[in-house]
């Protein structure tokens, strides 16, 4: 029944198909500006001050996001501009700043801005195994290794970045790499010696390197 009606309608002149341009950042949410606010933990305040320009430049210049530091509230605020190309930029910048706040370095966190599929994964030691007192301390020591070499080994083997903040562990990298790193860290927490983890990493890294 409808088909006959449309066909009758089509006999008459159809209006031109509408062309919709992609929405700009400010047009989303009806032209209102979007904000992101990232709180700054006290231990990251000084490093933020030191690395402010490195943070500010790529965000403002390349991402086209306004950024400012609210000292009183101890927060970093991000706002879209009219010429922000993509609404996801805001989120990326927010993630970038958040990663810095977790403890990653600017160079490492910068990858978040550049590469799409990078994530930050956080977990606690107690999620893996309940450790108390000295055991906990030893676990942390095992994770980092002597002079941090175990951590660096994992980072190099899996092209990730790891931050061990007391009992919290943060991993930055692609999904599969995060998985591998997480497995090694978990095995370290559970008590396997570093050598065993290394052998596993060796095998994994060779496989990872073959892939593109």
């Amino acid at each position, binding site marked *: 029944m409808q088909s006959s009606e449309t066909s009758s309608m089509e006999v008459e002149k159809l209006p031109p198909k509408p062309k919709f341009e992609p929405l700009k950042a400010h047009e989303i949410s009806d032209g209102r500006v979007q904000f992101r606010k990232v709180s700054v933990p006290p231990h990251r305040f000084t490093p933020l001050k030191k690395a402010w320009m490195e943070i500010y430049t790529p965000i403002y210049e390349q991402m086209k996001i306004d950024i400012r530091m609210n000292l009183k509230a101890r927060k970093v605020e991000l706002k879209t501009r009219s010429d922000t190309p993509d609404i996801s930029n805001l989120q990326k910048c927010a993630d970038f700043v958040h990663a810095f706040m977790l403890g990653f370095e600017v160079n490492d966190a910068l990858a978040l801005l550049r590469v799409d599929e990078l994530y930050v994964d956080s977990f606690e030691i107690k999620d893996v195994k309940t450790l108390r007192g000295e055991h906990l301390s030893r676990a942390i020591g095992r994770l980092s290794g002597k002079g941090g070499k175990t951590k*660096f080994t994992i980072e*190099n083997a899996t092209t990730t970045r790891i931050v061990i903040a007391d009992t919290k562990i943060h991993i930055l990298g692609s999904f599969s790499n995060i998985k591998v790193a997480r497995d090694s860290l978990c095995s370290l927490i559970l008590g396997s010696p570093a050598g065993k983890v290394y052998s596993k990493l060796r095998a994994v890294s060779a496989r990872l390197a073959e892939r593109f």
Partner: protein
Amino acid sequence: MARPIDGGGLEALHRLKSTEPPQWLSPSSELSQAARIASQYLFSSLQPFCPKSPFDSLLVEGFDAEQIWQQIDLQTQPLVSNLKRELKRFEKNPEEILKLLGEELVKKAAKEKTEEVSDKEAEGFEEENGGNDGSEDFEDIGDEELGSLDEEDEEEEEEEEEEEEDEEEEEGGDAGNGGGGIEDQFLKIKELEEFMEKDEEREYGVSKKKQHNDREADDGDEEEEGSDEEEEEEDDDELGGLGVDGFEDEGTDKMEDARYEDFFAHKKKKGPKRRSEPLDGSEDSDSDDRQEDEMFLENQKKENLSTHEKELEKLHSKIQQMEKANLEPKTWTMQGEVTAAKRPKNSALEVDLDFEHNVRPVPVITEEVTASLEDLIKKRILEGHFDDVQRAPSLPSKAPKEHKELDDNKSKKGLAEIYEEEYVQKTELASAPLSTSDEQKKEASLLFKKLCLKLDALSHFHFTPKPVIEDMSVQANVPALAMEEIAPVAVSDAAMLAPEEVFAGNGDIKEETELTQAERKRRRANKKRKFKAKTAKKLAKKARNDTVLKHSHDEEAS
């Protein structure tokens, strides 16, 4: 002096003989006187026969009976031994009897009286005339035999006897003359000949020539022996009969009628008879005597056998011996397996045993051996030539695997940079993937190229193909197109790695969930085995290192 004494002596003897036995019981001077005279007479009559009698006549007056007896004894003792010797001689060569007889024939008449007297005196003076009896009986027998011979024998025999007598006389004469300068008190040719003949008789039996002589001798010997056995008499009769039968008829007729049984058959009958009779016969005589007599008889029989019969007998005895040995149980050396209990004590020492030695004999360590060993050791140490076990070097079948080394330093590049580089690799086709070892390799290859250029210049750039050096590197499974050609002629989907290079089929093919129980167990067992081997190796290495360290410490300490 002899005549009156002789007549007196004879009278005295007669008187003694006539006295009755009871008269002897009471002592009477007449009888004693008569006895003295008689004994004197006898003594003097015997005196010429005695070789060494100290007295010419018996000293009777004023002498005790004991003293008279001693004198007689002095005379008779050597006489008796002489006579015995003579007897033995006659036993051995009976022809001398004939010689004697020949001589005696002449003196026969003269001695008749003395024989009678001696016979009478035999009763009273047995001891004195023991020896005389023998010789006189001998003479009797000789006379009797001669008489019988004269009656029965033919001319042949007489001729033979005469010949024999002649021969014997000649022999006797020869013997009497002596063998020149050869003979002395030890070597007598006569005795030699006697021994020869005796031996020959023993070996081959008695020769025909001497058969009757033997028979006569046998008869004489047997009778002289004085044994009162019936067999001898029987033998005598039979032998005598044989002799009679054998030589009754003259000529070849007798030979043709002669049969085996005549010669040999009766001997077999004699055998059992002989054996049975000793058992039944006189038990007075000792068994030893009986056996000796039997042996004597057997020897007598054997002397009558021919050579062939003797050999046969020897064979038979041998066969019997062997059969007897076969029936008996064997000696322990001939029995199979013999334990120590089954053989006599220490018998194995006497026997020369031969057995196999399965083990090499223990080497005897002498000073030379040790010296030689020490020299060898010194020489080896000087040379440095030890017999150490050297591990065979394992040949590398493939190039050493390139391990991606784990870098435990903080990465200099930031994460962003790493991803940037990755992106560039992916999109741009210019640069090949470089691994850390490649840089060093590049440097090395560069140097080598420079070197090769200079060397080739030396050889005027004559082409030599480059040696193929397999290098092991991690190949990225990037489309080959990306690696090789900028402008591909044809679009190719071929990847850089061949499918077997992507996955060789080693390692776990099955998924975890697909494994069966047995396979799971096998996997676990393999893992355990590898781990154990590895830990053992590590422990050994550690132990070695520890000992080395310890030694070094010790050395430092000292």
